[in-house]
């Protein structure tokens, strides 16, 4: 370094501006660094793939018996891979093919996908093809995944919410190869996703625009698509699957299985929360508890004069149990994360309510709907498996690393939100409890659950299983679905605990014990404090709302069977075979 400077404050040998200029010039001409390595690697891989597919490639469409060969050509060890594993739609043919690649050639893959749903998604870890996982939700495979974690055969980066993982696709977890699923392709490789668009746009956008490769499995190849959901130049390879991709009817709940206790809780939710805050924009979680609410809108809510005052705009999959409320004029709009099997014709015939394309079929989009759920909804209500004494809620229980999907996103207060609604403002006012603070609103986040789950397992616990899961899996933080500080209400058969009105941690604890029924947590309540909380309106019993629990009967349900739902839809709803009991 030649730098010399008269300035007494400059330490000896520190670089001068002149040095910096010289250095900059030197770097500019050195050409030591290449700036398109990703693109070059992509071109090499595609070249390799074309050679491997020789003769069986027509445009972008290749024959399915070459799928494993193609994947071996496209995948390098350590690549980040997204196998489109959604909540519902699965790229199952490609997932199967990935289990068949040679682990000596393709290994250490880093899987970055929202849902680990299929046995094949686990098998690639068992076979040593993949080693690392970043995901959101793991339904039926939760047990196997937890076992693999214990054996140290998979390392989990983090369990995300959907929007968070999609966000990371554009920051530090961009897929290098994405295996996606669509309904149909044309000969150019344009894709039609059908109603179950789900994650596809987010995955493809991230992959295609940062040197990644997109491989699509389609159910059919047609001359002319009903509409283009993904343009051909974002897609590299297309294969026709031997069978239509799997779509799970995840959001269908048979009204015949709704219990009186769920009806009681639904009445309490409608009168004690929906009507109380005037909730117009909302999201319902999955499950019978919220299905019961949907089925009470045209009956119980209508009898309270709430039509037009609550539940007008939804971020929601097309739940079959919402049909009676739609037909009764309760619901004005529904934007969906995905579709639901059997609802296609009904949705297409209700384009004023659902988002549909010019072709008539629904267009869903998980990323946008999660955004809507976060910022444009006043209320999220969903079930859970465990709630602790601070209101932290989780569905991750001993031996089951489930993940949570959309709940952590929609069940969080959107601190970036700025547009007011009456419900949001009222919740915010309660949260301030008269303190002299900047006025702002608050998202209503409701956890609804009977105090005992099946097999007399308590919903309420002193300590979440999530702590042990985190320790066993080496996670930095326990997998909590919704943090206590975001939960505003806990609703059980005993009534509502309004955590917004709690003054301190002791209030919160007793408010939770006060609705925890006959569980250990509930029986350890301080009866005097609980009565005091009831006087203060922190705890509201059904009878405080004028609800007689004895009147919570199935007669209140707008539909009591799947057949009733079909009838409400005028025959447009066509339930999957497993739900047809007649």
């Amino acid at each position, binding site marked *: 370094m030649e730098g010399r400077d008269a300035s007494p404050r400059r330490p000896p040998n520190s670089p001068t501006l002149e040095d910096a200029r010289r250095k900059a010039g030197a770097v500019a001409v050195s050409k030591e660094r290449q700036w398109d390595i990703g693109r070059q690697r992509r071109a090499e891989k595609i070249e390799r793939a074309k050679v491997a597919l020789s003769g069986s490639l027509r445009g972008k469409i290749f024959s399915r018996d070459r799928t494993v060969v193609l994947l071996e050509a496209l995948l390098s060890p350590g690549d980040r891979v997204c196998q489109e594993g959604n909540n519902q739609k699965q790229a199952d043919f490609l997932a199967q093919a990935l289990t068949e690649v040679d682990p000596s050639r393709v290994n250490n893959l880093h899987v970055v996908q929202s849902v680990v749903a299929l046995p094949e998604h686990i098998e690639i870890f068992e076979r040593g093809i993949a080693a690392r996982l970043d995901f959101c939700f793991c339904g039926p495979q939760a047990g196997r995944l937890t076992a693999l974690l214990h054996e140290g055969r998979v390392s989990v980066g983090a369990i995300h919410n959907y929007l968070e993982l999609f966000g990371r696709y554009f920051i530090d977890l961009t897929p290098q190869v994405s295996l996606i699923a669509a309904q149909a392709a044309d000969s150019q490789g344009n894709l039609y996703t059908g109603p179950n668009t789900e994650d596809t746009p987010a995955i493809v956008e991230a992959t295609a625009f940062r040197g990644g490769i997109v491989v699509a499995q389609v159910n059919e190849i047609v001359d002319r698509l009903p509409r283009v959901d993904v343009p051909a130049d974002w897609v590299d390879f297309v294969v026709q699957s031997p069978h239509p991709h799997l779509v799970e009817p995840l959001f269908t709940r048979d009204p015949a*299985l*709704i*219990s*009186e*206790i*769920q009806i*009681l809780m639904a009445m309490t939710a409608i009168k004690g929360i929906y009507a109380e805050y005037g909730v117009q924009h909302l999201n319902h979680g999955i*499950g*019978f508890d919220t299905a019961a609410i949907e089925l009470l809108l045209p009956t119980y809510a209508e009898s309270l004069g709430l039509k037009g005052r609550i539940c007008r705009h939804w971020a929601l999959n097309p739940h079959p149990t919402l049909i009676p409320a739609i037909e009764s004029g309760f619901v004005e709009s529904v934007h969906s994360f995905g579709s639901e099997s059997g609802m296609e014709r009904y949705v297409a015939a209700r384009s004023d309510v659902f988002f549909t394309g010019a072709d008539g079929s629904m267009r869903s989009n998980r990323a946008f709907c999660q955004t809507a759920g976060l910022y444009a909804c006043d209320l999220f209500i969903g079930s859970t498996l465990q709630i602790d004494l601070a209101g932290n809620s989780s569905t991750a229980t001993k031996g089951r690393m489930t993940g949570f999907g959309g709940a952590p996103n929609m069940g969080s207060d959107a601190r970036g939100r700025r547009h007011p609604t009456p419900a949001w403002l009222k919740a915010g006012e309660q949260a301030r409890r008269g303190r002299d603070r900047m006025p702002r609103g608050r998202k209503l986040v409701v956890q609804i659950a*009977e*105090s*005992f*789950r*099946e*097999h*007399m397992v308590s919903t309420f616990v002193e300590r979440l299983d999530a702590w042990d899961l985190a320790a066993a899996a080496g996670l930095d933080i326990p997998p909590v679905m919704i943090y206590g500080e975001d939960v505003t209400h806990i609703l059980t*058969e*005993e009534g509502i605990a309004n955590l917004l009105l709690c003054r301190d941690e002791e209030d919160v604890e007793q408010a939770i014990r006060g609705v925890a*029924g*006959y569980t250990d947590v509930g*029986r350890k309540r301080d009866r005097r404090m609980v009565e005091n909380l009831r006087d203060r309106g922190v705890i509201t019993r059904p009878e405080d709302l004028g609800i007689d*629990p*004895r*009147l*919570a*009967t199935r007669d209140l349900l707008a539909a009591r069977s799947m057949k009733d739902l079909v009838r409400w839809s005028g025959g447009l709803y066509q339930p999957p075979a497993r739900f047809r009991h007649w």
Partner: protein
Amino acid sequence: MVGWAVSAASTFSSLVKTTMEHLEFTFPGRRAATGRKHAVLVGVVGSGNLEVLLEPKPLGGACQIVVKTAVAGFGEIWQAVLEDFCRRHGLGDLLVSINDLGATPAVVALRLDQAVHELEGSGP
């Protein structure tokens, strides 16, 4: 009183495998039932459900409760649920017979309240 919420995936057979348990409780009553004096039966012995039979009879002012449950090991919770029931209604000279097939405490409490409602003559 174990079992499952009706929504659960459990099967009937998983319940009937468990041993039956027989429990008896006696609580002091504050008053006799008003309204009709003959027995009432509420509920059904179905999965996650129970049957409650209320029979007014002279028991020295006490409320006697006999529980037959398909799921053993929850005596303490039965005690708490039934104690609350007796505190709520204060009925004496009453024999309560319960046939339970895995109902949750919430369902048990609801069924008992429905039975009293029926007994006292203003059934829904």
